[in-house]
């Protein structure tokens, strides 16, 4: 039997695939962070909370209104996006003139508040959300048993990432957004309603997080804490990718997912710090990150 580093090829392929699946979540989340950061210069600490909100909205929709997974996949990001837009409009937008650190601190507080509230209402233990019947079961790929739902996650996250990237890099709207990042006042003086743009952007970022949350709901326990630790890892992903580029966030997300997946096989104890270690190495060699534009 063929082996790679002492691991049977089959098992190796399986682990690679699993890494890719987890990378999907990293990619979606770091993409949302990159969008918000890129345009608002705000590190959205509440991103993990918004991810959690997405999952919870889907759960509550199911419990109280009987709304199924597919509809939830549309409604939950919309709800969370609107909520994000509201937060941006009423509060976050007052911080743009200040040091970007205040945005970080504000969203940190926001994250605590959201998570605290859900913990208060629903407790810290998770709640179950089932895989939609049409995606239940799995496929035997020969080298592993792949739950169908996980396959779906990879595909849909790729599509979402690509779509967002195209929106920002290739459309007129995207160029307004990028310009507004650099000099809000001037873009406004050109006749573009920047405050509205920024609100939409934050809404979009939050919606992306919520989308990832709904995707995650059938895999992980839906719990108020599900985003808390994830967000730190995603920060590291973002540092490795370099915040200059949206594409960087996506690619790095997938890559680190895979790196982490392989670590879980070869040296499982280190699998939660491997991303941080990679971050340290990247910082030494390329302080701006792998895809960062500013050197």
């Amino acid at each position, binding site marked *: 039997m063929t082996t790679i580093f002492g691991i049977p090829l089959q098992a190796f392929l399986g682990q690679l695939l699993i*890494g890719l699946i987890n990378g999907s979540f990293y990619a979606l989340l770091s993409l949302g962070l990159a969008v918000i950061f890129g345009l608002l210069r705000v590190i959205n600490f509440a991103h993990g909370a918004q991810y959690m909100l997405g999952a919870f909205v889907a759960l509550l929709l199911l419990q109280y209104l009987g709304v199924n997974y597919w509809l939830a996949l549309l409604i939950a990001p919309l709800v969370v996006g609107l909520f994000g837009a509201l937060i941006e409009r009423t509060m976050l937008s007052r911080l743009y003139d200040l040091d970007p650190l205040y945005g970080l601190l504000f969203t940190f507080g926001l994250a605590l508040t959201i998570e605290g509230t859900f913990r208060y209402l629903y*407790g*810290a233990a998770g*709640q179950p959300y089932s*895989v939609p019947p049409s995606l239940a079961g799995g496929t035997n790929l020969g080298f592993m048993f792949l739950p169908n739902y996980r396959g779906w996650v990879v595909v849909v996250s790729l599509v979402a990432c690509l779509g967002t990237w195209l929106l920002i890099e290739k459309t007129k709207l995207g160029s307004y957004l990028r310009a507004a990042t650099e000099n809000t006042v001037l873009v406004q003086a050109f006749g573009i309603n920047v405050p509205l743009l920024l609100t939409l952007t934050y809404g979009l970022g939050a919606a992306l997080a919520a989308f990832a949350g709904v995707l995650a709901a059938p895999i992980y326990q839906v719990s108020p804490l599900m985003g808390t630790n994830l967000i730190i890892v995603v920060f590291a992903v973002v540092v490795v990718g370099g915040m200059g580029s949206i594409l960087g966030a996506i690619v790095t997300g997938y890559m680190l997912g895979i790196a982490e997946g392989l670590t879980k096989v070869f040296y*499982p*104890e280190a699998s939660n710090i491997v991303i941080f270690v990679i971050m340290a190495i990247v910082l030494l060699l390329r302080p701006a990150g792998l895809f960062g534009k500013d050197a």
Partner: protein
Amino acid sequence: DASDGVVKIGILNDQSGVYANFGGKYSYEAAKMAVEDYGGKVLGASVEVITADHQNKPDIASNIARQWYDTEQVDAIMELTTSSVALAVQAISKEKKKIDIVTGAATTELTGAQCSPYGFHWAYDTYSLAVGTGGALVKEGGDTWFFLTADYAFGYSLEENTANFVKANGGTVSGAVRHPLATTDYSSFLLQAQSSGAKVIGLANAGLDTSNSIKQAAEFGIVAGGQRLAALLFTLAEVHGLGLEAAQGLTLTEGFYWNRTPEAAEFGKRFFDRTGAMPNMVHAGTYSAVLQYLKAIEKAGTDETEAVAKALHEMPVNDIFAENGKVGANGRMIHDMYLMEVKKPGESDVAWDYYKVLATIPGDEAFIDPAKSGCPLVSQ
């Protein structure tokens, strides 16, 4: 008689953090039930229960404990979820000569090297869980094991204890994989466990980590494929959170199950009416601890610490939680533990009816012999 005309019990635990479902506010409720059931008075003094949320921070916990003892005339502190808190508060109680009864923490240190003449450990500990699941399950035929272990001291001690019992009972351990605390995705580890071919996959972790492992094991069809999952620290509250769909077939050990005896069921219903949830071993254990404490005061005829501690050490425990429980010289309350299997969705007819009792582990097997516990108070 009671020194100041009132007996005050403090329930100190996590009410907003990760362990809030484990004990939390409901433990406070259980304590109040115990007081009511006892009649609200002991030796003519009224009994009062107060509570605080230590937020999983030992420093906040010790601040509160000190203030309770020094300025609020609290006589005993109970529950104490999380071992760092329990150990810290037990040290303070020892210094202040006050009684503490731990029902929420798992570490055997409490009745081992760091034991206290006034400190008691109710409900469960890592050792008893390991004996229950490791020992009893092998006898049920689960003789090859693979461990999924949380990569920190708690996980190691669960794994080590369990593995010892597995081997002692003639089973073998085919491997283990260490996963970091608070991992979200277990599929890599589960695949490794799956390919090991072991009959039992032991989950030496806790809380959300265990829930997620179980849920993902269901997703990858591990139980359906014939392997058995054994959670080493998992309670009714968490089974409820996971749902029978994902949890079915899971094996675990608890010190209490509400539907095991009629008395327990009666208590469970009353508890349910007050909280909306059925009690787990932490809640029932807290009830038992409070009740036993009041009985001990009655017996000692005073609420003075030395006398009450002496009474607690001497009196048998008989209530809805324990039958013929006894307290060792190291403070460990020794009672029977139960190996449970989670029912399939179809098998459960009443709400919260989740367990089948597979085996009863007699107290003397379930807990460390006080003489071997390493507690300096016990003559070895």
